[in-house]
Each structure stands twice: as C-alpha cells, then as structure tokens.
C-alpha cells in the first residue's frame, strides 16, 4: 500500500489543463487542410486516392473523405497545405466541404437538449468495422491525462443508460443490424456522433461492397473527421456540442 502511495507521488498530477490552456500538438501533425490556390488544384485532386478534392469552378476539399495521408500537399504544395488546427468537427455533413473560407464549426445542441445533456452526457460507443484506432483514441479520453469525466461525459456499457451513440467504422454489412438495434435501444431524445473518416464516408474502405455506412434514417448530430481523429479533435467536438467552448 505504501509503495502505491509513493508511486502516486512520483507519477504526479497528470490531467492536462485543457481547455483552460491549449494542448501542444507535434510539429508534424496534419490538421485542417487549407485550400491555397486554384493553380495546381487539379494535380492535388488527382493525387488524392479518396476523391476528397474537387478542382474546377467550385473547388472544395471534403474533410469527411480525407484520411490525412498528405498525398495532395505533397503532389501540389501550392494548392493544399495542412495547418495544425485540430478543430475539425461539424454539425452538418455539408460543412465538411472546405472551400477556402472560414470553416463552419460544430454548433451547440438545442437549449432543450443542453438542459438534458449539458452536465451529464453518457455515450454508447458502437464499433462497426474500421481498424480500432478510433476506438483507441476514444478510450484515451477516459484516461487520467484527458479525464473526460470532468466535463460530465462518459462512455457507458448499456445503450439503456446512454444519451446517444458514437459510431466508428464504415458500418459493415455484418454490423448493420447490431448498430440499428443498439441505436433503437437508446431512449430518446438521443444524439448520434460519427467518429472518424470511416463512419462519415467510408474512410479507407470507401466504395467497398462489404460496407453500408450509417443508415440514412439514423440522423447524425456531430461529424468528427480524421483517420483516426486526434483525441483533442473528438473532445473539441463533444465540448462544442454541449456549448462548453466556442
């Protein structure tokens, strides 16, 4: 017992001060991409293996399809540049289409929902395909370094105890029914979060016949881009949803 006590002293207090102080991201981190110029955008579009970039008259970059491989910026550094901005979440699918202007960030839930979830949000995570990296970064939020519980957010075991589902993965055919049953088991009102490129648009598996995506009749309230999203991106989205940061 005394050894555990000394170990605790040596390990120190490790919960990060975020959001009071910013989190330091590594210099090589690829955050929100920026459309810089139209000149070589066609080259960048051709270099993207996931068709996330549209050149032409209405140039755009779809954050939902982007897996942050950096191929576009490598092929055409004059057209696309990756910033270190981790704030990528959006409330509407169309807001993920970046056109070069300001990004429309995630909106807070309605006043009524915030009254219910604002200080206690319980989520049931459903892993439906994917590679387990999004799950790993969701788990990280529960560790003492991030301590998501201090914002009243927690992952729970039963959908009956949850206020919403957080979906990761491209939703395989084999998980479609299980996802629907889990969603149905969550009492209303409920929210849905699509976490990671897979859940938003298929990610690396876009176009696969084995994957069906989140069914159209399950409305998504928050999109979290990334492959996988940095824990900071997920937390940023959740806190915006609850109106805790702006």
């Amino acid at each position, binding site marked *: 017992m005394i050894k555990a006590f000394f170990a605790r002293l040596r390990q120190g207090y490790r919960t990060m001060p975020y959001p009071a102080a910013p989190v330091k991201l590594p210099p090589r981190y690829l955050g929100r991409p920026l459309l810089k110029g139209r000149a070589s955008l066609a080259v960048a579009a051709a270099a993207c293996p996931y068709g996330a970039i549209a050149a032409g008259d209405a140039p755009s970059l779809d954050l939902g399809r982007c897996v942050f491989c950096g191929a576009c910026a490598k092929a055409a550094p004059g057209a696309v540049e990756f910033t270190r901005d981790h704030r990528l979440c959006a409330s509407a699918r169309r807001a993920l289409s970046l056109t070069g202007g300001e990004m429309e960030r995630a909106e807070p839930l309605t006043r009524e929902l915030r009254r219910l979830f604002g200080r206690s949000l319980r989520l049931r995570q459903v892993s439906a395909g994917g590679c387990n990296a999004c799950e790993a970064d969701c788990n990280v939020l529960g560790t003492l370094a991030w301590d998501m519980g201090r914002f009243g957010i927690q992952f729970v075991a039963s959908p009956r105890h949850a206020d919403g589902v957080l979906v990761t993965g491209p939703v395989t055919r084999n998980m479609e029914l299980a996802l629907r049953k889990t969603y149905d088991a969550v009492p209303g009102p409920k929210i849905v979060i699509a976490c990671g490129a897979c859940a938003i648009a298929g990610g690396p598996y876009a176009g696969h016949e*084995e994957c069906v995506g989140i069914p159209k009749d399950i409305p998504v309230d928050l999109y979290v881009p990334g492959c996988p999203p940095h824990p900071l991106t997920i937390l940023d989205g959740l806190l915006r949803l609850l109106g805790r940061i702006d």
Partner: protein
Amino acid sequence: MRTDYPSRFDAAAADLDAALFFDTAASRLSAGGRALAYFAVPEDGAHRLLLAIGFDREGAVEVYSTRVAGPSFRALTPSFPELHLFEREIWEQSGLRPEGHPWLKPIRFNTPGAVPGVADYFTVHGSQVHEVAVGPVHAGVIEPGHFRFQCHGEKVFHLEIMLGYQHRGAERALAAGPDARSLRYAETLAGDTSIGHAWAYCAAVEALCGVNVPPRAQVLRGLMLELERLANHTGDLGALAGDVAYLPTASFCGRLRGDFLNMTALVCGNRFGRNMLKPGGVEFDLDYALIKELKLRLEAAFRDVAGAAGLLWETSSVTDRFEGTGVVTRQAAEGLGLVGPAARASGVGLDTRRNYPYGPYEGFTMSVSGSGDVYSRAYVRWLEIQKSAELAAGWLDALPEGPLAAECGPLAPGCGAVSLVEGWRGQICHFALTGPDGRFRSYKVVDPSFHNWQGLAMALRGGEISDFPLCNKSFNLSYCGRDL
C-alpha cells in the same frame, strides 16, 4: 522449394502434384514446420492452394502449391489443428471443401445468405448446464464479436468465438493493388499495429521489386515498431490491472501509453504511425533536436512504466488473480500454432526478431516465461517493454547515416514473396503473388490474432466465466485484423 526471407521466389517452381502436395505438407509440418499461411487462389476456373511453412529453428520459409481440380481437397486439420481456421477460410472464400475437417463453419459470414453469428455452435447438454451468449456489441469501447460459453454454474466447459463483424474487404482490396490506396489498407488492417502491418506490406513489395532498404530507414522502422510495442504493452498492463480492480497501475499506464503514442506522433505526426513507412524506406527523418527530445521522453516514460508495472508483481491482490488463471499449456500453444507474447508466455521460443531476423534486429534475445497463465502473459509484456526501450535507446544513440528510402521499380511478374514481422501481438505474415502483368494476383494477410483467438478459447476451458474479461485482456487480440 525454399526461400530465405526476404527474397522473392518464382511462383511456378512451388507447384507440386496434388497427392505429393498433401504428403509433403504433412511431413514438413511434422518435421518442425509451422503454418504461416494457407489459402486458395482462383486459377482458370479451378483453384490453386498455397501453403507457406516456417521453420522456426532454422529461420527458413518453404512454399508449396498445387492445383485443385475437384470441389474438395484433403483436410489436414485432424493431424494439424493449427490449420483449422485456414481450412475454414479456404472453404468460405473459394467453396473448396476440406474433406474430413471436424469443425467446418463460416469464419467471416461474407457469402451470400450468411447471417453473422448464425452457425452450428458446439453445445453441452445436461442438468443445470446453461449457455451464456455475449455480443456482438460488448460492454466497453471495443470491437464487436460474439462469444458463447457452455457453463455449469461459474465453470466454463467450452467457449466458442464467432467473429466476422469487422469484415470490410480490406484483404480483397489489397489484392487489387498495388495502387495509391494500398499502403493505407495495410496501415488499417489492425489500426493499433499500423507500423507492423505497413512494414510487412512494404517488405513484401520490396522483395518483389528486388530493392534493399537503406540502413537508416531500417533502423527508423525498428524504432517505430518498438514504440508501437511499448505503447500497446504498457496499455495492456494497465488494462490488466484495471480488470482486477488495481487502479494505481491502471491509471498510470493509461497515461503512459499515450506518452509513447505521442512520441510516435513526434516522428511522423500521427499517434499510430500512419504515413511513416513507404515501400523502399520511410517518409520522415530525425534531426539532432528530435533525437534528443525522443531520448528524454523515452527515459522518463520508461522510468514511470517501471514504477507502475513494478507494483503489479508486489501486490498480493493482483498476483492472486493473475496466477493460475487462464492457463494455456505449451503443448496446446504449439499445437494451435500460437504466436507472439501469448506463445512466449506458454514457453514457446518464437519471436520473429530472433527466429527470422530482419532489418535492424541482429543478435536479438527474446523473452520467454513458462507458466502459461495471465501472470505469465503480463510478465512477458514487462520483459518485452524493457527490451524494446533498450533497443530504441540504442538506436537513437547510433542512427546509421544515409538515405531514407530506395526507389522501388515495377514488381517482378509471376513471383511470390513472404514477409514476416514481429508485431506487438506476434508474428505478422503477408504473402503476395504477382500475375504476368506485374500486379498482385493475390495478397494474403495473416494477423497474429488469426492464430491466437483459439488460444483464448482454450484459456477459458475449466475456468470461471468471471475470469473471461481478464483472460481476454491478457491476449488482447484484434477483431479487425482477423476479419480483414
């Protein structure tokens, strides 16, 4: 025929007459061989079976193949249980029936009309015997799978594991390459093993191109692979502590796992090592300042892991739960062809870094523990954490000079290559075959979990159902790596 890793071989030279193929396979598997990969490839309206056998003592790989004309072939599973899942996979993917397979049922439920989880389960009957079904959605942030326990009270007679929910067509898509998406497929075969699988993919491509990777790139790959191992082993020790309600180590290790992931991100920008590797070498270099920063962080994180892990072995409430729980005997581990820490914890002397040395691993000494229980699987991880930290620190001190990558040309047509990498879960095997056009004709991925899931089922036999979370965590297998 025989190929020394990582050279490529002429695919046609591996061909044997059908009867000779099965006899040779049986004799080589009884002569110290272990199945690395066994699969079927369509060929002019029929199928070709390919089998790669590894000889751990000699560090050699042999490949045999044969053309199967009829609708079935001779099952080898009755004599070599390690092949049971391979033969079920062949049956599900190609329709070829392994005659005499004792346990033939789907593994991924990806054929028309298949319903995931719906199959004939092994059942036990009798007074007060009951069945417990769990999943696919589990109580936690983890991947989906279906588990069925045949129990009498707390005692588990048998556990059957049905997966396939994560099947997303990754292997099928890889086989259509190589193209711009191939590398990301490799990195996401099992997201927590991005470096391991990306390395195996790159090594297969490099063998097919006949390219040697420069020493600096080899060492940087090694550094990233060991950081991946450090992060996951540390996380596992924390999770094991959490499952026996020992919260100090659970909390410390949760944070420390992140510290190792952040070191990976310091090198390549991504916590899982995405975008680091490419065929021919690596994308990112280390300068003096970065090396210094990594050394400081590695030292500090290792010191804290040593403190956190040390508590486990000294706390009686932990050792009481770890010792004697979920025992897998050495005989079972060898018979089922287990790999990685799970095998080494049962006393099996197999570590790709020692048995099939590649890249920067020369004169590697592996860590083995003998008791085959949860304690042993935890302790092997701690031994490996020490080894990885030592390797990583050594490489940071003496990084070879030179280029970061070699240019990869076109793939040699009509060839094959087997690449082996010791991921943190165990041996990863990628088996690539090229067609006459120099593109992949087939691409087979064998994640360590493919071998090890049956080990978990064996660990539960005769145990208590309440030990399942602990046993499961002590293996910490990949669902997506197995379902592909």
